[in-house]
């Protein structure tokens, strides 16, 4: 436990990838396999469900520290992290436990799940008193499932690969599904990750997907495309869909569907079950699951698996409602049916096709889709244009088509791993976000790196035009990203000086700050006072040049709804 806490502290203290890599290599070289197994699990994003309710942790911390509940709450507001707060207010203990991470997780922490408050009140303080402060903070983060540290899965992969002298793509392959809830890390599973290459590696895979190849953002002006990318004819161009990136795996007579988070989501999409019949064994397809427009006049066209000429995708907000459901009733399945828009073929006839050029994979994919002949599996259309300017013109239709822009894939590129660029590149050429000028009306202190800083804001627009005799500000979005550290410090200081009232951690401020807010999507919402919900809101710019009166009003938002 102490060694892992030490690793956490080192990873947390640096922003350098090389330093993080070195720290992980050092840890893995020393750790027992059963401990390393859990370390890999947590570092690559695995999170067991919460073991103890935060409410109980809070009550116990208050009891053990002897603080008044309000004083604990004030402390939490200043720290911005529950695990850290608890570790800071409990009496400092001498580290007395030699048990490794695996023993702590398997023998001491996992058994706490479902225990009665009385048992927890008896057990937890005993566990806490064995740990020094940094181990204690880590322990509580593991209990609450809030363990996060700034390493990417790719970096973990690289650390393991270099230690085991393996190709990092091979390690990435083996890591797929490692953090799935159904998998319990063990010494054996860790040793498998770092074992030498075996010849039957492919056969061992079962329902395993391939690591997803991820795109990079392209934000240069179109005038530079020719120089940057070469002629448009060398690129495969597709719409960028607003759905769930997924791999459809068909092997051994079974079908598995994996989301980009490497979560097995087969059961979330029962209408895709029928693909088990249409796809031959040894097929893996990469594509996007989208909510598809229910039967309308142009259905025939849209459902033509060969060439859907116009996308009939529904807003992501609808898909999201479906994802949120615990049980999928007939009603929601009827209202929000999904299809797979396929755009890549990773495995065909049991062969790994990732080293085939993009164009060849695409040609074979279209053949697979045609043979499958199932309306839930469509080909994401390939777009053609005379040149980049022509494509840029076509891209202007993105909003009305319900897509986020275009994807550009080099026709001769191979299918890489994660956000790598050595095998070829995928670019996402997104349309500019929607934007409105909004007024900051509430602020809340942030977490983690922004603890104690007022960094989370609620924004409002006017409910009437400037001429209106009486109008008020209606909140419609929360945002906390897009400002530089320096700007955030300035906003923080203004918030402190202009606070009108405090409701718990939230401060209402005298409206004085206007920001240009960007967002990706907009939809009607009954849950919001403004009647509108926006997707991925963030601050694009601080409009110091605008007064509060010049901010936009609800009519602007309603116009964007189209």
């Amino acid at each position, binding site marked *: 436990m102490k060694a892992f806490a030490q690793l956490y502290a080192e990873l*947390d*203290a*640096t*922003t350098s990838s090389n330093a993080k890599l070195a720290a992980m290599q050092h840890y893995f070289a020393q750790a027992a396999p059963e401990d390393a197994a859990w370390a890999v699990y947590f570092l690559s994003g695995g999170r067991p469900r919460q073991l103890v309710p935060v409410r109980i942790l809070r009550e116990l911390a208050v009891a053990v*520290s002897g*603080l*008044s509940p*309000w*004083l*604990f709450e*004030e*402390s939490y507001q*200043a*720290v*911005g*992290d529950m695990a*850290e*707060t608890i570790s*800071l*207010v409990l009496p*400092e203990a001498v580290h007395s436990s030699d048990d490794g991470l695996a023993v702590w997780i398997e023998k001491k922490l996992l058994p706490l799940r479902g225990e009665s408050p009385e048992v927890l009140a008896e057990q937890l303080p005993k566990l806490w008193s064995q740990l020094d402060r940094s181990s204690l903070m880590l322990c509580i983060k593991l209990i609450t499932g809030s363990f996060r540290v700034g390493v990417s899965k790719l970096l973990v992969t690289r650390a393991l690969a270099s230690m085991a002298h393996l190709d990092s793509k091979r390690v990435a392959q083996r890591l797929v599904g490692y953090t799935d809830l159904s998998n319990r890390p063990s010494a054996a599973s860790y040793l498998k990750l770092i074992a030498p290459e075996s010849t039957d590696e492919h056969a061992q895979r079962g329902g395993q997907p391939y690591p997803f190849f991820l795109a990079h953002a392209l934000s240069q002006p179109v005038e530079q495309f020719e120089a940057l990318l070469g002629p448009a004819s060398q690129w495969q161009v597709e719409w960028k869909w607003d759905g769930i990136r997924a791999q459809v795996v068909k092997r051994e007579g079974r079908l598995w569907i994996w989301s980009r988070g490497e979560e097995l989501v087969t059961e979330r999409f029962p209408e895709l079950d029928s693909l088990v019949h249409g796809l031959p064994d040894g097929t893996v397809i990469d594509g996007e699951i989208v909510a598809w427009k229910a039967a309308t006049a142009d259905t025939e066209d849209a459902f033509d698996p060969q060439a859907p000429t116009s996308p009939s995708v529904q807003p992501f907000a609808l898909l999201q409602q479906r994802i949120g459901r615990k049980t999928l009733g007939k009603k929601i399945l009827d209202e929000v049916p999904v299809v797979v828009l396929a755009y890549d073929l990773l495995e065909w006839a049991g062969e790994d096709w990732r080293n085939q050029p993009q164009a060849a994979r695409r040609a074979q994919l279209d053949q697979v889709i045609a043979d499958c002949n199932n309306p839930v599996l469509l080909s994401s259309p390939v777009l053609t244009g005379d040149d980049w300017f022509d494509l840029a013109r076509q891209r202007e239709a993105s909003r009305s088509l319900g897509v986020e822009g275009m994807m550009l894939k080099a026709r001769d590129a191979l299918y890489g791993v994660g956000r790598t660029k050595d095998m070829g590149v995928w670019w996402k050429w997104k349309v500019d976000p929607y934007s409105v000028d909004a007024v900051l009306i509430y602020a809340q202190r*942030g*977490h*983690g*790196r*922004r*603890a*104690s*800083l007022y960094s989370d804001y609620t924004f409002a627009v006017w409910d009437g035009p400037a001429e209106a005799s009486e109008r008020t500000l209606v909140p419609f979005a929360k945002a906390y990203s897009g400002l530089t*550290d*320096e700007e955030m*410090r300035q906003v*923080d*200081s203004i918030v402190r000086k202009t606070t009108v009232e405090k409701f718990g951690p939230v401060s209402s401020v005298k409206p004085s700050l206007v920001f240009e807010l960007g967002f990706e999507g907009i939809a009607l919402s009954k849950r919001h006072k403004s009647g509108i919900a926006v997707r991925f809101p963030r601050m694009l710019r601080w409009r110091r040049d605008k007064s509060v009166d010049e901010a936009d009003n609800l009519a602007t938002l309603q116009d964007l709804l189209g």
Partner: protein
Amino acid sequence: MDLVIARPEGLYCPAGEFYIDPWRPVERSVITHAHGDHARTGNEHYLAAAPGEGILRARLGQDINLQTLAYGERLLHHGVTLSFHPAGHVLGSAQVRLEYGGEVWVASGDYKIEPDGTCAPFEPVRCHTFITESTFGLPIYRWQPQAQVFAEINQWWQANAAEDKTSVLFCYSFGKAQRILHGIDASLGPILTHGAVEPLNRVYRESGVYIPPTLYAGDIKKSDPIMRKALVIAPPSAGGSTWMRRFGDYSDGFASGWMRLRGTRRRRGVDRGFVLSDHADWPGLLWAIEQTGAQRVMVTHGSVAVLVRHLREQGLDAQGFSTEYGDDEEELNATETGTASAEVLP
């Protein structure tokens, strides 16, 4: 009658007609210590504890109209008996004790409980009413013994030197810098200082405080091999400036009480945060308040509301005093110090 009240110019003693650490120019000022937010220019008369004279003159001007008293020495002014008592914060820092008509008030200024060898240690003074600071007035702030922090700094410096990396330690140039220089193991390698730190070292040395030999960083060439083994003491404002270029590959650290929190540590963006403060931590504040025996406590700059509420729960008559202190670098949350400029001496 209250011996001290809050006025727009600062904390004011009506009976004695003088101000304590005023933030606007006044006729008579009593100064607790020489940090920029407590000692400002423009007052006609200054009264301070004798050990602080050198720094006060260095910061406010050699020609200020300054009268000093030794710690414990009493002065009677308009019927108010005034004396200074060590606050343990920085060289020359003092609490101000006022006695009038049988009532005793003590204004703490800034204070620290743990003795550090660079200034007279904090002495609790019995009083009826205690005016306390509250910079670190939350239970999350609890300091390790400083020996442990110095050992961490030594270790970090040694490890860097072994890799031929310069160790750049950011800290406030008045007080913290000298405390660190006094506390670390100077035998580990050469020590370089920034131009804002060196003049203060001189004042400390002249006052008889041991500060190990230091070199002015500006005199050392980038190619000089001692650079790679050196510990550099610099003010936070030097971070990110062109001044840093001379160090090539370096590791940086920051010494402040705010480094206790992971969030502020990360915001600072330094390799290491060392938790070292010249202010009292939460247990220190409560201990100091208890030691005074005061039934009434006035809380200034920091976590005023929290400390007031806590003291009231303990049965004390506590209230907040609104002041304009807290612009000194350590009292600002570490995130905001980038803009503080009161670093360079005249």
